[in-house]
């Protein structure tokens, strides 16, 4: 590949300290997204998806958080070497974030026009009037009816779907290289969710933007992503091309997840549940984090943490001592 990837992260660690205890929320995450590609970051609640996204955006600047990584590049630019102000200039223009809950992410006391226009004013130095005109355009683009009239309205005057669209409008306004969408549709109805996903996908195609889609919905990931990365307890346990990964999971967690989904077409008598619950990030077992719930777990799983390694014979990586068995078992 001649072009550098849009986003390249190596060995990202994020640790919170609270009450004198360290909470390693993200523990060595690698992410690479190519131009025009959608990477879905899957994983259940608390696995560290949002923290990863915020770390990439550089939003974890509170005193009680430590963020470190070996490589952090955005379209070839080294984020680690930048000053805080330079990184700030990239935010909103080169990389943008779509939040999960649009109602809390939009400032209740500022008008929509103000909030969208702010982007143009901060990054493009536009006047209030120009910014307003561009905001109307953006709102039109994401399908807000009568955008020019509603530009002075406040967030609470819009429906949930419209608010989410406004967030999307803000994310694409300056044609960024990377959009990070953190569960952008979880709060929405399926019919509206489909609209928003469609919208993001369309903009990605038209602008060639890379998208990091964070979700815990296997359905959503399957619908829109090119590649999938599955997170479990602060680590990526498996990543690969979407079709392959769904067909032949190389990590038992991925496999168990896929098996636990109720199927519309064939209601089974009992769902294949995964026993137990995800570990709390504050107390992680020394070996494989999934071992206590894994039906394949052996002694080595309990004692040694498997590294994320390429799986032979595919464009995939998995962090499991038994991934080869998994694949063979699936084929057999």
């Amino acid at each position, binding site marked *: 590949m001649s072009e550098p990837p849009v986003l390249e992260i190596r060995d990202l660690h994020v640790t919170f300290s609270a009450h004198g205890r360290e909470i390693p929320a993200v523990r060595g995450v690698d992410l690479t997204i190519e131009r025009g590609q959608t990477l879905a970051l899957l994983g259940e609640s608390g696995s560290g998806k949002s923290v990863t996204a915020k770390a990439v955006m550089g939003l974890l600047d509170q005193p009680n958080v430590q963020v470190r990584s070996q490589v952090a590049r955005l379209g070839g630019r080294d984020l680690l070497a930048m000053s805080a102000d330079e990184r700030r200039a990239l935010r909103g223009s080169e990389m943008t974030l779509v939040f999960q809950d649009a109602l809390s992410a939009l400032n209740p006391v500022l008008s929509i026009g103000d909030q969208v226009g702010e982007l143009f004013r901060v990054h493009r130095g536009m006047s209030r009037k120009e910014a307003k005109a561009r905001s109307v355009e953006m709102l039109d683009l994401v399908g807000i009816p009568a955008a020019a009239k509603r530009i002075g309205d406040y967030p609470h005057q819009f429906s949930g779907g419209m608010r989410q669209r406004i967030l999307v409008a803000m994310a694409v306004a300056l044609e960024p290289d990377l959009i990070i969408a953190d569960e952008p549709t979880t709060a929405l109805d399926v*019919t509206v969710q489909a609209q928003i996903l469609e919208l993001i996908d369309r903009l990605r195609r038209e602008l060639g933007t890379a998208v990091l889609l964070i979700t815990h919905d296997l359905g959503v990931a399957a619908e829109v992503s090119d590649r999938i990365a599955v997170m479990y307890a602060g680590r990526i346990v498996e990543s690969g091309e979407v079709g392959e990964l769904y067909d032949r999971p190389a990590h038992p967690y991925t496999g168990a997840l896929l098996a636990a989904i109720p199927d519309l077409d064939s209601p089974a008598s009992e769902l*294949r549940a995964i026993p137990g619950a995800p570990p709390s990030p504050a107390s992680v077992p020394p070996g494989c984090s999934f071992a206590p719930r894994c039906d394949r777990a052996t002694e080595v799983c309990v004692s040694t943490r498997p590294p994320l390694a390429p799986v032979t014979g595919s464009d995939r990586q998995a962090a499991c001592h038994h991934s080869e068995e998994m694949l063979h078992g699936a084929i057999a």
Partner: protein
Amino acid sequence: MAPSPEPAASGPAAVLPASAPAGDVVLRATGLHKSYHGGMLSRGGAVRAVAGVDLELRAGETLGIVGESGCGKSTLARMLVGLERPDEGEVTFRGRPFFTRGGVPRDIRRRVQMVFQDPLTSLNPRMTIHDIVAEPLRVHRLSPNVRAMRERVGELLTLVGLSPDRMSRFPHEFSGGQRQRIGIARALATEPDVIVCDEPVSALDMSVQAQVVNLFAELQRTLGVALVFIAHDLAVVRHVSHRVGVMYLGRLAEVGPAAEVYGAPAHPYTMALLSAAPVPKPQLRGRSRIMLAGDPPSPVAPPPGCRFHTRCWKATERCAEVEPVLEAAGEHYAACHYAERG
């Protein structure tokens, strides 16, 4: 697992959910209406959360309700358990009205229980698991003494798959799935005939969701309680329900046996819903989908005529004027002028 001393219910379905068991009607709702008048701040107009719902729940069956956010599912659920008094219409339990002059009769209260969506906020963070599960026993004085109460709480916890020796812990020490089990144990404490579950698995992690869904299925099989199971995940509802109702803007658009509603939807909204649901199968990507235009209308001023006509691709002038009523084709009801009858 020790079966609970529940009085004999209609024979458990061997495999669920094949067909609805033909038990008696335990819960019946007729013409339910509920509007919310906002506080002093609202700009006139009431939110018509539920606008004319009729339902029946038979002993031992599971009735699934699906619908989008804000369509009135929770309001309906709250009326079904007597938490909310309907503006119009009536809920009856085995033919006896819920709301009498002195409020809901205590024995009906005992017989109809609820499981809430968010397992954390529905458990008082300041109470131990024991106290939470024992609350109904205390309120209804179902245990003669403290020891009996502890025993009964232990029994209930075992029933939902929790170890009784953790009953002096607080809710935050449990995982999401375990919390929901605690909520279920509390609902079972009074040996109810009906449990209304308002999105009982929506707040759970995907890896835990299946555990709880399985638990519901098993409890119904062993205890024979009738369930109202509300969710917005179509697959989950399909999985647990004998019959399914689809709600749109405060009304039922379609009700019928699960297989029929999913297999041959009669209402365009059901069709749209089924087609919009994301499918976790990448190879199915790019299948043709019904994309609905626009957002759901505001429940403050629902559209006249058929409530769905503003987003419906089949809508005609008639739909904008005449409100369709639920019409039956066998067990399968739909409220659409152009319902597709298979």
